[in-house]
């Protein structure tokens, strides 16, 4: 992978945070490389915000270290050097709250000066970034009158006002409507193309899967998977193939058995039954297989050969990972498995 050659700019080592006897983040390790987008995925209460707060030094870790690149060297983040080290990082932590009586112009201008953005360029910069999220008309309105989504947009913008090299965004898409979600995703990709590094969290898979180069899955404070989308999917080895037929058969069970017989030899799985199931919601058949493209092609070939009237044949990427995500999380919840560690790929790997 080319990104393995890129320099590490943030390195989290054995991060641990406890609240009383409860461990919110436990032995968390993560390397973030220059120019990549990393998605931190995890259910509610997994420890995403806590992890990001430790990087921002809003919380001090109980154990572990945070290393951040500064002037070409990785430096250990401490209370003393935090201002310099965190200077070229833009943070958005949790749902942002602003001073209600202030306007975006005043707030952003304050933040920009604090971060040392050239004074003369600030007014223009504020207009630029507000335009990015469609808040131009609200530049002089009090934040107290903003809707939740508008505050969220302002939060994202306040993280990038000083044009930082690294963005750490905690659920930047929460509360945004679908159009705004797409626009922010496009904005993140644009920022990535400008060479920025983005570390963003979400509890929704599709928010991170489309833009992230690598995805870190966290649950109950532990990192349970960290790899590219593709590798994670492969690792799940249990990907659902969706098969939509021209017409719904009268006898669904009979059709299911028929499909299963055709597909069974080519799944690449050890499973010998319950390969094909019917999804009554989507009114389609779903077949489990190992996700390899060769198997996928073979299955398609066989189905056509047997003259099954397929109108749609697809592997929804997000779904596959969605299943893995749920599977991994469930695994930890029930068995405390150490096994998913297998899918954590360090930089040493391929």
């Amino acid at each position, binding site marked *: 992978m080319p990104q393995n050659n890129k320099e590490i700019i943030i390195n989290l080592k054995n991060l641990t945070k406890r609240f009383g006897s409860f461990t919110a983040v436990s032995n968390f390790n993560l390397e973030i490389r220059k120019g990549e987008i990393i998605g931190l995925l995890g259910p509610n209460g997994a420890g995403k915000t806590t992890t990001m*707060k430790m990087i921002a030094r*809003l919380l001090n870790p109980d154990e572990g270290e945070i290393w951040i690149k500064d002037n070409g060297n990785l430096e250990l983040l401490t209370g003393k050097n935090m201002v310099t080290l965190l*200077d070229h990082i833009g943070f*958005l932590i949790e749902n942002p709250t*602003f001073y209600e009586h202030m306007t975006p112009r005043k707030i952003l201008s304050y933040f920009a000066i604090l971060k*040392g953005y050239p004074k003369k360029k600030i007014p223009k910069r504020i207009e630029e970034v507000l335009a990015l999220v469609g808040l131009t008309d609200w530049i002089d309105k009090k934040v107290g009158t903003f809707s939740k989504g508008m505050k969220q947009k302002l939060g994202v913008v306040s993280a990038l006002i000083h044009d930082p090299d690294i963005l750490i965004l905690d659920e930047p898409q929460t509360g945004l409507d679908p159009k705004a979600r797409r626009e922010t995703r496009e904005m993140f990709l644009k920022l990535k193309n400008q060479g920025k590094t983005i570390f963003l969290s979400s509890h929704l898979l599709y928010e991170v899967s489309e833009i992230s180069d690598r995805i870190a899955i966290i649950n109950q404070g532990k990192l349970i998977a960290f790899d590219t989308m593709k590798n994670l999917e492969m690792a799940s080895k249990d990907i659902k193939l969706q098969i939509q037929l021209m017409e719904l058969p009268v006898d669904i069970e009979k059709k299911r058995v028929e499909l299963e017989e055709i597909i069974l030899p080519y799944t690449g799985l050890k499973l010998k039954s319950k390969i094909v199931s019917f999804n009554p919601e989507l009114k389609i058949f779903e077949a489990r297989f190992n996700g390899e493209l060769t198997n996928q092609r073979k299955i398609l070939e066989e189905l056509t050969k047997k003259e099954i009237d397929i109108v749609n044949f697809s592997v929804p990427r997000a779904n596959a990972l969605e299943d893995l995500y749920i599977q991994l999380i469930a695994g930890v919840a029930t068995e405390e498995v150490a096994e998913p560690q297998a899918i954590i790929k360090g930089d040493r790997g391929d």
Partner: protein
Amino acid sequence: MNIVKEETIESRMDKVPVGLKKSLTQVGATVTFEFKRNLKNMFISFGIAVGIYILSLVINLIQEGRGAESPASAGEYLTSYLGMIGFFILIIAVMFAGNIIALDYDKHTGNLIFPKITKGRLFLGRVIARYLLSALAVLVYYVLIGATALIKYGDLPIEILASLGWAMLYTFAVFALVAFFSSFLKKTSTTIVVSLVMMLMVFNLGTTILMMTGVTWEPLFILTYYANIITYSVGYSVAGVFVIGLPTERFLEGSIGPGVGGDGPTFMRWITPDVTGAIIGMIIYSVILIGAAYLFFRRRQQK
């Protein structure tokens, strides 16, 4: 590697003001921002100043209307307006210092602000801006009462400036107390309540207990005691005669009970600190409280 290093340093050099300059820029930006943020409070504080002034004016007018003699000198007239100054300063300090720290934790606004500036600089900028606003409100009050006395008597005792000075110092001490509570209490509202209870009840209770137990040492550890010098620095009345300037006899003995020199238990009362005691006392109070506020703030973590 070396080349990369040099490039980064250089590109940062023209982007970020370094060292002291940067600190000053950040503190300055914070002061400006805090002024803007507290603009509404500023007008409210002016309103309160005007309100208390009008209240005192009306009381004076009613008394004159009832046929009471108006004070013989401008100084004496001024003291009639300073009866509520301690309370006024308390309200002002609570307004400007109550949310100085607690709010960022209570409303989570700190999540946005803290990684951008050190807590020391933020605190410094806030204290400067908010204290100046508090002092401005006090100044407005003095301008109002000074102008009234000037119109009525045609002159003003210079002691009003001494009184103003004491009021400014006392404002800072009370401000520091409220900021201290704000640094560790969860909410702004709790901070306000605790500050009021402390100033209006706990200190008064302390004073009363001292009076009752008959100890004679000066209550320099009771913050509200210092408010007295604001009024007494203008002057005081002895047997109906107004004397300009601080009293030399600062310790009174009396007795509680009906009539003058009643037969109840005797009490002792300190009426005002002297100049040295007031300066040292209020400075010690301010430094300890502001210092403690900063230390608590620095250690406080975002929840």
